[in-house]
C-alpha cells in the first residue's frame, strides 16, 4: 500500500529532514501572514495549527462524543468536551467582562459567538447531528481525518462545501422567516456575569453527571493508561521525555485535548474571535461558485449577526487562516507520528454516506451560524443560550443518525 509518508521517507530523506521542513514551512507561511492585517492572519494561522495538532493527537471528536454515548454507552469523549467547555467558559467570561463591563446595557460583546436563538438553531443542530454521524466526523473531525488519509473524509469535505453553498443561496429564506426576528440571547444581559458563569458551570456539571449515570448502565471503559516509564536522569532524557509526551504514537488523552482546545479558543477570543471553521469554508465555497457566476455572499443581515459568519470578499480571512492552519497542523501531526496512510472504506456505500452527511453538515452550519465548534464549543462558553439549543439538537440528531447507521450496510 503506497503511502505519502513512505514516499517522503525514501532512503536518502531522513525523517528528521521532513520534520524540519514542515516546521520551517509553518513558520515561513506564518511570518508571511503575520505581515498583513495587523498580525491577525498570522495569529490565526498558528492558532489553526495548534487546533489541528490538538485534534489529531488527542483524537478528540465531537461526532464521536454524541454518537458513542448513544451507540456504545461510552461517554469518555463527551465528558472530556464538557470539561473543555467549563474551562473555556471561565476564560471567555473573563474576557467578555472586559469587553462589556456593563452587560445590562443591552449590547452584546463583539467577537464571542452569541448566535440568535430560533428554529434555525434547533433545525441546524439536528441536521448537523444526523450528518456528522453519517459522515463519521464533524467538520473539524473530517479535516483532521483527511490528514490521516481517510478518503471518506475527503468525500465528506466535498459534501460540506456543497452544503455550505446551497445554504448560502437559500439563506434569505431562513433569515426572513426566522433569524431576523430572533434574539441573540446572552445570559449576562439577563442575570449578570457571575450568575451566568455559575449557571453554565452548574449545567455542565449536571450534564457530566448525567453522562456518568448513562455510562454506568454498562461496564465503563477506562482511559488508556500510559505505559510505566523509567524516571529521566540526564537533561537529555528530560527533554526527550517532554518531546515524547507531545509526539508519542499513543497520543494525548481526550481530557488533555479538550482542555488544550479550550485554552487555544480563549487565546483566539482574546485576540479577536474564538475558534471557528465553517465561516472560512463557506467563503471559499462561495468564491468557487463565483467562478461560475453564482456567488451568494454576503449573507443578508449577517453583518449584524454573531457567530462563525463568512463575511465576504477575498480568500483570506481569520476563519480561512484558521482552517488552513488546522489542515497543516493535522497533516503534520499525522505524518510525523506515522499515522498517515491512504484508507479506503471496505464498503463502497460509505462514500455516498459521507457525501450526504457532509451536505447536511454544510447546510446546517450556515443556518446555525457555526458547527460543533462555532455554534457549540465556542458558543456555550460565550454564555450564549444558542449553544445549548444547538447542543440539544446535536444530541437528537445524533440519535437519529445512530438509528440510521445501524440499518445501513
Amino acid at each position: 500500500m503506497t503511502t505519502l509518508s513512505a514516499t517522503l521517507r525514501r532512503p536518502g530523506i531522513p525523517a528528521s529532514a521532513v520534520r524540519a521542513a514542515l516546521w520551517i514551512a509553518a513558520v515561513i507561511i506564518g511570518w508571511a501572514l503575520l505581515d498583513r492585517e495587523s498580525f491577525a492572519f498570522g495569529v490565526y494561522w498558528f492558532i489553526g495549527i495548534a487546533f489541528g495538532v490538538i485534534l489529531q493527537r488527542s483524537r478528540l471528536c465531537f461526532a464521536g462524543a454524541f454518537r458513542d454515548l448513544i451507540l456504545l454507552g461510552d461517554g469518555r469523549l463527551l465528558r472530556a468536551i464538557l470539561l473543555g467547555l467549563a474551562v473555556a467558559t471561565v476564560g471567555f467570561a473573563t474576557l467578555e467582562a472586559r469587553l462589556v463591563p456593563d452587560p445590562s446595557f443591552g449590547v452584546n460583546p463583539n467577537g464571542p459567538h452569541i448566535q440568535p436563538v430560533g428554529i434555525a438553531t434547533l433545525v441546524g443542530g439536528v441536521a448537523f447531528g444526523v450528518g456528522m454521524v453519517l459522515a463519521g466526523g464533524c467538520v473539524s473531525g473530517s479535516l483532521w481525518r483527511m490528514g490521516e488519509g481517510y478518503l471518506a473524509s475527503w468525500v465528506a469535505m466535498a459534501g460540506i462545501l456543497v452544503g455550505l453553498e446551497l445554504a448560502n443561496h437559500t439563506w434569505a429564506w431562513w433569515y426572513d422567516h426566522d433569524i431576523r426576528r430572533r434574539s441573540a440571547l446572552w445570559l449576562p444581559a439577563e442575570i449578570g456575569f457571575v450568575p451566568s458563569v455559575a449557571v453554565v458551570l452548574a449545567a455542565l456539571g449536571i450534564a457530566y453527571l448525567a453522562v456518568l449515570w448513562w455510562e454506568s448502565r454498562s461496564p465503563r471503559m477506562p482511559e488508556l493508561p500510559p505505559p510505566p516509564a523509567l524516571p529521566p536522569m540526564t537533561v537529555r532524557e528530560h527533554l526527550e521525555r517532554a518531546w515524547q509526551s507531545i509526539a508519542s504514537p499513543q497520543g494525548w488523552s481526550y481530557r488533555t485535548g479538550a482542555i488544550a482546545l479550550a485554552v487555544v479558543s480563549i487565546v483566539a477570543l482574546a485576540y479577536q474571535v474564538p475558534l471557528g471553521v465553517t465561516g472560512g469554508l463557506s467563503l471559499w465555497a462561495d468564491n468557487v461558485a463565483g467562478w461560475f457566476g453564482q456567488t451568494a455572499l454576503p449573507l443578508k443581515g449577517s453583518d449584524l449577526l454573531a457567530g462563525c459568519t463568512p463575511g465576504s470578499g477575498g480568500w483570506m480571512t481569520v476563519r480561512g487562516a484558521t482552517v488552513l492552519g488546522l489542515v497543516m497542523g493535522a497533516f503534520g501531526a499525522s505524518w510525523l507520528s506515522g499515522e498517515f496512510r491512504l484508507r479506503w472504506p471496505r464498503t463502497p456505500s460509505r462514500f455516498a454516506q459521507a457525501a450526504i452527511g457532509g451536505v447536511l453538515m454544510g447546510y446546517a452550519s450556515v443556518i446555525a451560524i457555526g458547527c460543533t465548534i462555532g455554534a457549540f464549543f465556542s458558543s456555550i462558553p460565550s454564555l450564549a443560550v444558542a449553544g445549548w439549543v444547538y447542543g440539544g439538537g446535536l444530541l437528537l440528531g445524533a440519535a437519529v443518525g445512530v438509528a440510521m447507521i445501524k440499518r445501513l450496510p
Partner: protein
Amino acid sequence: MVELDVRGEMCPYPAMKARQALQKLPPGETLEVLTDHAPALSTIPWEGAKLGYRSSIEVVGKGLWRIRLEKAEGPIDTRKALEEIARRAAELTTS
C-alpha cells in the same frame, strides 16, 4: 472461525460491526477481526467483554492487527478485563 475484515473503516464501524458479528455468531465459534484502526484495539475487545468473549490481539503488520474473540468459560470479571484491555491497547499503540 468467522473472519471480519474492517480495514479502512473508521469509527464506529469496527466496534459496531464486531458487535453485530458477535451477536450473530453460532455458539462455539470464534470471531477474528482484521483492523487498521488503533482505537478499535480497545473498543472491539470491550464489546466482546460485554458479550462474554475473551480477546487476544496479534500484530499482523505496521498499523494492522487481528483481534481474536473466543467465548469465555464462565463469567468474566469485567473490571479486570477492562483494565487488561486498556493496558494492552496502550502497549500495542506505543510500538
